């Protein structure tokens, strides 16, 4: 976690305590469904990071292909994160019009549209 690393030494111990409590709280209070989605999010994040590293370290030569790949990661990430927000029972009050099933339908539609543009851009 970025914020934790940037903290200063006097609060470091407290931060690490806070971090462990946070992690425990996450493990305890998150349903398996959400964990499933979170795992997927982590996967997408790593894919994106590797692609970005390739662009920065090696070459950005087919720039459109890089953008397509990276944008597919980013897009899929935010769509999945949106799905997570929508199916999260804690957010139920915010999404009156969106049932979890509707959220999944939205997610598939968004993904298909996204993938269409990704393939179109891939070259």
């Amino acid at each position, binding site marked *: 976690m970025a914020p934790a690393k940037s903290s200063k030494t006097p609060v470091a111990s407290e931060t690490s305590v806070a971090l462990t409590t946070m992690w425990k709280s996450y493990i305890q209070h998150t349903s*398996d469904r959400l*964990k*499933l989605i979170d*795992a*997927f999010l*982590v*996967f*997408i994040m*790593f*894919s994106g990071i*590797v*692609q970005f*590293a*390739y662009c920065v370290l*090696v*070459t950005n*030569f*087919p720039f459109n292909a890089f953008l397509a790949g990276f944008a597919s990661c980013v897009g899929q990430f935010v769509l999945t994160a949106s799905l997570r927000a929508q199916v999260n029972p804690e957010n139920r009050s915010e999404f009156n019009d969106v*049932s*979890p*099933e*509707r959220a*999944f*339908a939205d997610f*598939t539609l968004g993904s*298909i549209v996204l*993938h*269409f543009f990704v*393939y*179109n851009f*891939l070259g």
Partner: protein
Amino acid sequence: MVPRITFHFIWLVLATCVHAGSLSLQNPRFTITSSTAAQLRTDTLSLAEKPEPLKLGPSDTLKFTFQITENGEGKGVQPHQTFLRFHDSVSGEEGIQPVRVTPGGKAKFELNMARPPPSLPPTADRPLEVSLILGSFVHEPTIFDLFDLYVPPSHAPAPHPDEAKFHVLPLIHHTFRPEQKLPPKFVSVVFAALVLSPWLVLLGLWSKIGVRVPHLFSPRIIPFTALLGAFEALLCWYWIDLKLGEVLLYGGILAVPTIFAGKTALAATGEWRTGKN
């Protein structure tokens, strides 16, 4: 243009046919005088070989007299055109000066360096080759190489006023963007492996969480997932082969059953969810 060429050609043929003879030069003689009228050099030219180069100072005058005769006989003739040509063989600059010839064939030419004629070409420290050109309707045209002439050097030739406008432009060289070079194969392979590695993370995490898909193969769900897979396949096919219009058409066709399948599938999951909760 064509008639003019034939016209010349006729004359040429005529001249050779008539064989009226050739023109020759009698008593070619030059004199160089200084501005104080002192004679510096005077000599008769031999046409067989050039004399020593003539030198003119900035205020000297060159006088050149000769008579033109037919076939080397005494009777002088007046050619139709008589020119003196000053030529710088290195720079290619030349000047042509017409010479007036009397009907008796006698001619006198004077070059005053204090007031040089406009046609005298610009010079460096090289001599100008001076030659006499005779043209006639009835005789064969003739050129006599007379002598080399040193005149005081002048400035380099000024550019022609039209030169800037009408000039052969240098050829255009197209510059292309350099070909993008691909990274070495090893790097590509390493990064390909890296890009694929998150799948391991994903599978690891999922197996740790323990994914259960109890309803995946139920008849109400499977059409939906299959159709979604078909969509992905279509898009992949688009990348490989299809054109835009075809993809939109097939996608549109595919969308209809997908919507229905999705409705039933999601309604089913909704029931299971509410039933379970």
